């Protein structure tokens, strides 16, 4: 799928260069409602694409339309950011803050109106099942809990577009299953872009998938369509892996459950 009219976010012909390295090469993609996976190996350009979607940077060439607006100009960027949630790959936090304070701080950063802030924080914590831990210091949380708080801070402004960069990395299997359910719930209320290289995640929670290889879009479609590329009959992690490897064509042997290391 390229720039679709129903898409929450549309990237058209976007090229991003880091000095001599081309991180994204004329990428055109649309992100509709639901959960869309960005699948690809490290260095494929997934995080760069997310930085365009989060308005952290603008493309050197091409355009990005988010929620119907192009992200240029201070006021427009600010307005867009109020409607976007971001969970970066390396999610940092202030260890001395309590969970509630931290999410409140995130709500303030995202311009949630002061009168709504307490309610939004409570909703976000409830969504990620962290209400019981709201008074716990951030430094006392497990990796899985931290990821949940990361989601909470990303959704506290009730964003229309949520960008999740490798949210399940480092989680144990049980946590990962719980997380997938959480992402599915998010997908019911927002457009979610999930950057990952975990095939299982893609198979279980994503409606659509785009495969990035060396800064270019190699595939975009439903998860079932990706699995079908390699002739996989089932839509599961193995099917996603097979489809991905079919596209990557000798990009390397993936580790079990992962693609394109």
């Amino acid at each position, binding site marked *: 799928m390229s720039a679709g009219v129903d898409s929450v976010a549309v990237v058209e012909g976007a090229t991003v260069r880091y000095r001599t390295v081309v991180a994204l090469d004329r990428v055109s993609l649309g992100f509709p409602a639901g959960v869309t996976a960005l699948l690809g190996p490290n260095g494929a350009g997934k995080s760069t694409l997310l930085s365009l979607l*989060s*308005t*952290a*940077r603008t493309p050197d060439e091409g355009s990005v339309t988010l929620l119907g607006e192009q992200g240029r100009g*201070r006021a427009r*960027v*600010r*307005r867009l*950011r*109020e409607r*976007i949630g*971001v*969970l*970066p*790959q*390396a*999610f*940092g*936090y*202030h*260890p*001395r*803050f309590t969970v509630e*304070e931290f999410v*409140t*701080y*995130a709500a*303030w*950063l*995202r*311009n949630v109106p*002061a009168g709504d*802030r307490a309610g939004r924080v409570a909703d976000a914590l409830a969504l990620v099942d962290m209400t019981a831990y709201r008074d716990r210091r951030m430094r006392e949380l497990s990796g899985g809990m931290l990821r949940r708080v990361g989601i909470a*801070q*990303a959704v506290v*402004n009730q964003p229309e577009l949520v960008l999740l960069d490798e949210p399940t990395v480092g989680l144990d299997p049980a946590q990962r299953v719980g997380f997938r359910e959480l992402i599915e719930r998010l997908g019911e209320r927002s457009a979610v872009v999930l950057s990952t290289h975990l095939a299982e995640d893609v198979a279980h929670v994503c409606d659509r998938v785009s495969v990035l290889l060396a800064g270019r879009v190699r595939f975009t479609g439903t998860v079932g369509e990706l699995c079908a590329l390699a002739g996989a009959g089932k839509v599961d992690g193995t099917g996603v892996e097979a489809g991905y490897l079919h596209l990557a064509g000798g990009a390397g042997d993936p580790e079990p459950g992962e693609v394109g290391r």
Partner: protein
Amino acid sequence: MIRVLWCEMRRGEAGKVGPLMGLIGALYLLLEDRTESDWIGWWADTGIVVQLFGVIVMGSVMAATATWTASRGQRDRTRPWTDTAARGGWSQALLIWASVWLWTLLAYAVHVVIAFGRTAGVSDEFAPVWEPLLLGAAMSALQIAVGVVVGTLLPSRLMAPVVGAVWYALFVAAAFAPGSGIGRFAPAVDEHWAGSLVPDTALMLSSAAWCLAAAVAVLAVPALVRRPVVSPRPWGVVPVAVVALLAAGALVTLPEKATPWAAAAPQPEDPPCATTGRTTACLWPANRHLLPRLERAVADVDRALGPLEGFNRRLDEQWLDPGPVAGEAGEFAVMTPDVGVRRLSQDLLAAAMPRPPEGCEREGSKAAGGLPDDFLLAAVVHHRAQAPFDYYGEEFAAAVEKVVTAPRAEQDKWIGKAVDSVRGCAPLPGLPR
């Protein structure tokens, strides 16, 4: 905003450093010996001392703390999501700055209460001088703002101590280069005003305005420099920058008055004075609390001088203009607001000594052991008044002894001639045999 600010205050490093600085400052002010202090009892100097500690010590440390807190984005790896926040970099910087500054102001307020309390215990009046305090608060705001900016732009662990040390060094440099103008833009008022000086209000308010406006304006710099962060609204930054520039212009153009920060106090119409016999001494109104001690000291001096002629019988505190007075007037300085009667008597006696005419160079005399011979006259008078005088060696002591062991009438005669000699810029008469 209040809740987020309160959270920031509780969780930021300033929440620990601020109270610590408050405690250190409180001890510094409480441990000051009242009888030796050069500020306890003078409202203006009390404000100056609080300001000076607040800026040089606390301000530098809190600026370092602000640098550390502002660099946490890098340390805690929160930048990837704080940089993409709708709230701009200026707001984020203002939040950290406000949290650190509020802690500083809290500690500052404690210092003010302690210092004012101590001064109220000595002074008869309640007359706080607010300008130095305002200037100190404003300067600490600028120090902390610079700390936030450095911490945001150069988020290294090393930068916090560097910022603190640089601020401290800047104040030292300003003190060593009083005419350089650094002091007006980085004010740390280190002066003694006692009662004879009053704040140069226009200058101090201009400097405070500069500090506050520059603080707020400089906090916008990281948001202007760092690309992913939402930049500040121009109508927010520009007015503040204009105020800073106007204040800076005023600082450049305002002339210096009596001292870098003070103007001469207007001469009082009715200064507190004490008179005994032929001797009168007057104080600046700020020292009115010393009047009972002054009365006793004046009585001591009048008794010591007795019927002797030629001494200054009208004594005024430094810079106090006695107007037209009969006879010669002397000047004395009050160095500590809680000065005792004994010390006051000594100072009055020294002020009562005759002075050689302007341009007269007193040379050392053999009789005075090589010292200027008006020292000898002063030593003799002090000895007669049983007041201590500096010891200048055996030869000098022997000369004093020779005068004071002579019969009283002969002493008086020698003193009378000596007074005339000093006033006439002539050598002292020979010692009594």
